[in-house]
């Protein structure tokens, strides 16, 4: 994947520790920053702390210690209104998808745009584009509980990308996909990143980053090592 131009820091972790009760250390005193427009891969074994790190970024979890700044704001000091705004600007593709099972594919993808009161015409156009990109056009009126895991995953990714957010987090976005659909997802991520979206992708799947020279944050037992991938 070609790398997009990068500029100011959008995410800053300073000596962050996350301990789950009673004494499970998920992240231990980690510091890093991610600049605007970067595409970063979080790698590591299952249970290494990748999902915890993503949850801290989108404020689903609070750090036990340390400082997290998102778009220049201390996440711990954010007021409810600012947090809502941050969430509107952050697309998240959850590992468990978090789709509404009795709603259609169309309705699920429309949700983040409705939340930001986007015009119906724009919503329609954007959904048409995303359905096409995820090869889901034929499924748009189907309830998501009737889709396969792979299709549900693509709906979750389309929903995360719906608002063309400045920041997109994806947790194992290709975990249920075959190589063809993985390529669709990678293409969408690349397009978004080239348009300026900062991407953080937690993955086991080496195939989606092995051809790139993006930053990789490797997590192992709560500790991180950062390096730039050497494209092969």
């Amino acid at each position, binding site marked *: 994947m070609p790398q997009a131009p990068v500029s100011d820091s959008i995410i800053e972790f300073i000596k962050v520790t996350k301990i789950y009760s009673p004494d499970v250390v998920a992240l231990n005193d980690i510091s890093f920053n991610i600049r605007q427009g970067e595409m970063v891969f979080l790698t590591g074994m299952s249970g290494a702390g990748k999902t915890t790190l993503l949850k801290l970024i*989108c404020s*689903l979890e609070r750090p036990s210690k340390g400082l997290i700044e998102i778009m220049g704001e201390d996440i711990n000091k954010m007021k*409810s*209104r600012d*947090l*809502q*705004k*941050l*969430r*509107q*600007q*952050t697309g*998240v593709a959850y590992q468990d998808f*978090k*789709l*509404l099972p009795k*709603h259609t594919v169309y309705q699920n993808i429309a*949700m*983040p745009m*409705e*939340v*930001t*009161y986007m015009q*119906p015409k724009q919503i329609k156009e954007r959904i048409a584009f995303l359905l096409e990109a995820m090869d889901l056009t034929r499924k748009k009126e189907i309830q998501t509980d009737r889709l396969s895991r792979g299709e549900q995953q693509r709906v979750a990714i389309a929903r995360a990308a719906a608002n063309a957010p400045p920041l997109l987090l994806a947790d194992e976005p290709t975990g249920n996909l075959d190589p063809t659909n993985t390529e669709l997802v990678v293409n969408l991520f690349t397009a978004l990143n080239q348009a300026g979206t900062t991407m953080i992708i937690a993955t086991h799947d080496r195939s989606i980053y092995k051809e790139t020279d993006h930053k990789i944050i490797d997590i192992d037992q709560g500790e991180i090592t950062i390096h730039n991938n050497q494209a092969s």
Partner: protein
Amino acid sequence: MTPRYILIQTGRNLKQTWGTQIMTLITVSLSVFMFSFFFLVYTNMLNTGERLGDHIRLIVYMENEVPPEMEEQLATKIRQFSAVEKIVFKSRQDAFSDLSEQLNDDRDVLFDLGSDFLPPSIEVYPKRDLKSLTHIKLFSDFLANLPGAVKVQYGRDWIERFGSFTQLIQLIVLCSGILLILTATFMVASTIRLTVVSRQNELEILRLLGATKAYFQTPLILEGVIQGITGSIIGLTCLFSLYAWIKIKFAGPSFLEIFTLTFLPGSVTFSILFVSVSLCTLGSYISIRKFLKI
């Protein structure tokens, strides 16, 4: 927030909990109907009371004629006790003249009796309002104790029953009003709670997507408003239909000749509608505050 979104979301909410919504609607309609029905009866009783007041007077028969210098003093005393329309002092001669006039062509029968056989009296015309009517017994007791008073006469039984009945209706209006407050507020609150609970999963996801407070709350508030408007329109329409039916059914020489039945004035109808909508909205708001955690 766009009106389109609010309407769509409100429609979704109503659809998701339609069974409860219908039950709530029936309860709100019934409460509005009951309250406005008793209120209608009450206002008609008031009107009837006012009309009856035209014909009501208390006649205080005196032992002796009241001297002109005492009239003002007695009138002041009476007025201090209760509001009255007018007080007329009648001498024996006045009473005789009135009776002669009433007998018209048969006045001859009075010739042998002399013009002073009738007792002097004071005619007291109470104010034409319900309060005066319902307290008429007390007033009559007061008049009976005036110096020189022998007897007080008025349509006692009928007025007392009317007064008691009106007080009973007043109590029923009060109770049905409380019922309306309770049902409208609590039924709507519990319906909204059900909506919130049934959409918990969706609300949680919307929260993660950055939905604002207004985004969550407005459709739920609108749901309460719709319940209030629909419920009170149905209740008031039922009442009007009943009123129209009674008017047709009992038209002619029946009790409606005595009691002219009138529907609630526009301002009262609008007030009932407004209060019902406000109560339902309040119920909705209470539920949102209590159960919607954003």
